[in-house]
């Protein structure tokens, strides 16, 4: 790859911002599994496998499954963040395989957040 210029930086920024905002790019949902050491120790890998399994079973092509670092609330790991287009992100905690499958069915596919497993709605303040 040729060396990046500042222009390239801006292009990459614009291209990938779409996935953060979910407004463009043809995706309907983004699911982030928080995989810091804390998350992995609490079972985040299994949650990821279950998520990928459900996506495969549903044959869904409009869902981004991605990983990220510690979400800060280590006591509630494993955690995921579910964002549907046009809706604020929702963080779930204390997950296991069953809850993950339920969230997939009800929220990710069905569009209805599961209140009893949700910790918080919205995005964090970074100014």
């Amino acid at each position, binding site marked *: 790859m040729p060396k990046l210029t500042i222009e390239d930086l801006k292009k990459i920024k614009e291209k990938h911002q779409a996935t*953060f905002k979910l407004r463009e790019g043809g995706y309907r949902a983004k699911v982030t599994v928080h995989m810091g*050491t804390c998350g992995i120790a609490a079972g985040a890998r299994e949650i990821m496998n279950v998520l990928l399994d459900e996506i495969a079973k549903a044959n869904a092509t409009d869902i981004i499954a991605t*990983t990220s670092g510690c979400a*800060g609330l280590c006591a509630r790991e494993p955690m995921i963040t579910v964002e549907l287009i046009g809706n604020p992100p929702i963080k779930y905690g204390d997950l296991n395989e069953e809850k993950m499958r339920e969230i997939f069915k009800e929220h990710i596919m069905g569009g209805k957040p599961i209140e009893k497993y949700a910790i918080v709605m*919205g*995005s964090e303040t*970074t*100014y």
Partner: protein
Amino acid sequence: MEKYRANVLMCAGTGCVASGTLKVKDALQAELEKQGLADEIKIVLTGCNGFCAEGPVMLVYPEGIFYQRLTVEEVPKLVEEHFLKGRPYEKLMFKEPEKKHPIPTMSEIPFFKHQVLRVLRNKGLIDPESIEEYIARDGYLAAAKALNEMTPEEIIKVIKDSGLRGRGGAGFPTGLKWEFAAKQKSDVKYMLCNGDEGDPGAFMDRSVMEADPHSVIEGMIIGARAIGANKGVIYVRAEYPLAVERLRKAIDACYEYGLLGENILGSDFSFDLELYLGAGAFVCGEETALMRSIEGQRGMPRPRPPFPAHKGLWDKPSVLNNVETLAQVAPIILHGAEWYRSVGTEKSPGTKVFALTGDIKNVGLVEVPMGIPLRTIIYEIGGGMKNKKKKFKAVQIGGPSGGCIPESLIDIPVTYEDVVKTGAIMGSGGMVVMDEDTCMVSTAKFFLEFTADESCGKCTPCRVGTRVMLDILTDITEGRGKEGDIETLEDLSKDIIAASLCGLGQTAPNPVLTTIRYFREEYESHIRDHWCKTGICSKLCSFHITEDLCKGCQACLRACPQQAIVGEKKKPHRIIQELCIQCRTCYTTCKFGAIKVGPAIKKEEPELATSEKGDGQ
């Protein structure tokens, strides 16, 4: 206080910021100034309200009108309609009021509400293994600015003006450190990162390296440019495999994209960066020891001066910054010193990351503005004690170099200065919260065991001094304490602090000194009464059942490994002291608080027990 006709609350949650809140804010501010309304209308950035999908959003008071999907282009019209003509700008108004959502928003939960994320700006948001996602969050824009638009002097000035202080613990001004190194004339200089996080209970640096490795690398590129270094090393513990893996991938990606190597981002600046894995010795977090370790020698400190800025790694001018410090650099370059100072205090500007652990509900990683009261961190963000029935006793800040801050000082603001006044130090940011069931003598002993073990042995005060102190503490916790021990500990502490070669020894007595200062009566009761009132020191306590409180539920009876508890159902139980080994199981099992801790009882040891069990725990 100034009075404003209207307040504009703009959401600055990650979602809205990604959609352009800050640009709209600048445009709005400019437009208000242009219209001569800047003195009447105040713009405030707020936390997220959960309307991310409609962002950027803002709420205008006193009317309480909600605007969504703001754009820079719409700002003049909005100002004209709403603020000049005084009628809502319907085009951007929130059409139908959102149904009340049962899931709480970020601003309704104290854990999220009080945090200001700068170091952790990408926390849980980006894929740490994707350089593109880092770039999408303004990554490497600061490096581009520093390399192409700023001179090294300008970079140093911004960092100095920002007041950024080293987050490794001592709080030395980062800009000054860079300036010292920049002034040295040398063909080779080194920019180093200290990722040797070794304090028990601390995991800030690990989380940053795992969640956002590029933020550290970008800080290093900028620092290297400022001091004129072309080589850098990240020193990270081998015990952090995930951090190592992600840093390695991040460095590889940077080389691939030309963000490391020669002529970075089209500038004339070149910088090579490598990882060095430390074997986990605590002393290697000390800067001179860390440099010896990279050189392949035994990790031992050497006297300063000469300071590393003059003679550091391989005797060349070097700067060593902590992970968290470096992660602060890029946003400062991008947004300026004033922005950085907009939170925090005059002498401790900005934010600090803390790792909350111990007997606290919300164990986790938090970033707060400096100057926030300790109480807010513990009771609001931390959610209070894990066991609601227990009272808060003390918080240990700064790890083995820090100290215990008692309940009476919980309202202090968290700044470098205020924490030092308590006898603790800010340290790298570990916060171990302890409830009333914690024995402070044992806590001091725990930390001293750690430092005595980790003392490298080079200087006598630290090597021998910590060992002697540990022996005295062990005696106190096992019933061999004597009058004068407390004074000996205090004297020894002063000597060790004064005479030790490096920070490890100079701070090692802090946990002992602070616990003596705030919990002296606990030491005295251990020594004089042979009574550890928390029942932690098994040789200095006995357990008794209060008959009035005992419901006869038999829970303790079943839990006792010694079958030392007798009693019938629904009738008060009793502990047979001769059989009891003070394991504390009954005490933690009882739901009614019927079991009390008394002083040690002299008892005839059954012959069997001594020969088979040795001396117990």
